[in-house]
């Protein structure tokens, strides 16, 4: 078997000199959908940020290979250009840049080619429709004054336009109502289908997974992966909680 798209080995990450992730291993192959679950504070977002290259998250050990290259050598923008994407739990507001211009800029960086405006605009409108998003959002400043739901939709809009090889969705479904979760899930499914895109979905809920075929589920507790299984594990955890896994994490310390 060839190497997986993402290969994480013994990854250890510090935040402000405190070790948050301990020797995490994770493999994600092209086109696979993985779910990462775990109680609050387990280090799920830390894993997302560390993979994306946020300088506040300091990698103190281990290795990450992405598409055959050493990811840890690259800055966040280089990682994005090579096909990694992170949907933020709290997308930031940036005044003075419209969502549309920002995406155009990002697409040009990703593809290394100038965007043809007409086609770009058409495609944006098409993706907005999938996400049940008013196209006027494209001309508004990036996330400024967007509701929580619109911010998350704007993240998925970027996902669809940027066409990465692997997307990490950090609680993209949190704080959304049932309809919005369904819409976002539809958008993610679209990405999966169009791109044969791989996914690492950080979530507490099954809603966002409804239309997605999940290949693996991982359980992260206290900075360690302490369990895994197939899609049915999501339901099991929602029923029984993390008690069993917390005991395992304790035992491993």
């Amino acid at each position, binding site marked *: 078997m060839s190497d997986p798209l993402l290969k994480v080995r013994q990854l250890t990450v510090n935040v402000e000199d405190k070790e948050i992730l301990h020797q995490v291993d994770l493999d994600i192959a092209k086109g696979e959908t993985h779910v990462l679950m775990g109680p609050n504070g387990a280090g799920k977002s830390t894993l997302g940020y560390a993979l994306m290259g946020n300088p*506040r998250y300091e990698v103190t050990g281990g290795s990450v290979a992405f598409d055959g290259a050493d990811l840890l050598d690259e800055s966040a923008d280089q990682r994005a250009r090579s096909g990694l994407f992170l949907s933020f739990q709290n997308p930031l507001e*940036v005044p*003075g840049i419209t969502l549309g211009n920002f995406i155009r800029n990002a697409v040009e960086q990703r593809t290394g080619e100038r965007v043809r405006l007409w086609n770009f605009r058409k495609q944006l409108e098409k993706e907005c429709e999938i996400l049940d998003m008013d196209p006027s959002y494209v001309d508004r400043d990036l996330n400024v004054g967007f509701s929580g739901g619109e911010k998350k939709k704007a993240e998925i809009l970027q996902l669809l336009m940027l066409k990465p090889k692997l997307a990490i969705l950090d609680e993209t479904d949190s704080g959304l109502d049932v309809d919005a979760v369904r819409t976002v899930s539809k958008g993610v499914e679209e990405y999966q289908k169009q791109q044969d895109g791989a996914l690492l979905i950080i979530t507490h809920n099954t809603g966002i997974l409804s239309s997605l075929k999940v290949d693996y589920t991982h359980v992260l507790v206290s900075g360690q992966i302490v369990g895994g299984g197939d899609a049915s594990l999501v339901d099991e955890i929602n029923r029984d909680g993390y008690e069993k896994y917390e005991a395992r994490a304790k035992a491993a310390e």
Partner: protein
Amino acid sequence: MSKEKTYVEDVDRSLYDFRYDESDKDFYKVESGLTPEIVEQISEEKNDPDWMRELRLKSLEIFNEKGMGQWGPPIDGLDMNNIVTYVRPKTKMSANWEDVPKDIKDTFERLGIPQAERKSLAGVGAQYDSELVYHNVRKEVAEQGVVYTDIESALHGPYADLIKDHFMHLITPHDHKFAALHGAVWSGGSFVYVPKGVSVEIPLQSYFRLNAPGAGQFEHTLIIVDEGADLHFIEGCSAPKYNVANLHAGAVELFVGKNARLRYSTIENWSKNMYNLNTKRAKIEEGGKMEWVSGSFGSHVSYLYPMTILNGEGAQMEYTGITFAGKGQNLDTGMKVVHNAPHTTSVVSAKSISKDGGISTYRSSVVVNNKAKGAKSSVSCASLMLDDISRSDTIPAMDVRTQDADVGHEAKIGRISDEAVFYLMSRGISEEDARAMIVSGFADNVSKELPLEYAVEMNNLIRLEMKGTIG
């Protein structure tokens, strides 16, 4: 993570920095320093009417008596004995671009001035050192009765009396030391008159270029917009960098008539050896409106606070400005407004950016007199600091003398957020571009107010300033 460590001492100003050998003998300039003889000499050279010669000599007396202002950044580096107050370019003013000498023409060509005129301006004046070298206004605009000329010619033409009645009446030599200096040695600048009810559809522009080292530029701009008329005037400034101090002490006097509107836009990019001590003032009559748009990027030290006197009922003022202070710059900018009549309004949005140890200070004064019942004033300022060694201060003063007024002030000081930079980078945008994007976004409300080519120039300046800030 591999990062390029670069530090650029000064931005690439090659566009602004080119200069010709000025050792040319054809040049006429007065000795440096300031004496009654020098002032007489300038007056003679310019063929002043008697009242103007007297104004100059009186101003010189006031200059010698007055002390330096006790506020604002230090100006010890400025020694008046070393400033050449008058440098005449080796040409007479022309209304025909072809007649402008080649070196001067090239200078302005490189700055894009004639191109802009062809494209989008109703008239252009270009000043090189102390004198206007080119002045032209479109035929159809002139046919509307709009006058746009240099002040020297206007002093001997049909508008001589109008100028006498307005020149240094709004800004008098008594105001401060540099207003007095201006009165003594002013040279060049523009006179604009827009007759009653005339709307000038496209902007007029003056471009000021100070080329001679160690010189001062003291242009005077006098604009009268008559009742119900409408004008947009743009002023641009630049200079190449020298190792000696240069001084800019211009004066701008604006008279906005009943129900008239004037928009005055400035993009200032003086080189970083310039002391920019400029005075601007506007008086607005009933129902009139003054709009200031201002981008300050250059100079070593700036003192710049455009003042508006809302003199008639319902007069309005809007001020939108941005100041960018980089290494070695101390820019003291802001505005002053006096509400002198009922139901007058002022809206101020001031922004500043400081980096590499630059100091940016917002200084303002809002005065509401007891006559100004129902006046409204809202001031908002925001500053962005790009590192830990830069500085940003806000010094707002308010003097409200009526109960019946609504006056508000808000100030925000922030840093560029690392999380926002990371967010943009996570979409493939380089760190440098991400920072420039955030800074341009911060300045966006100002660039939206500018004509397109100036907005582009401003964004280029920001981009230049942001280059090499990552280390």
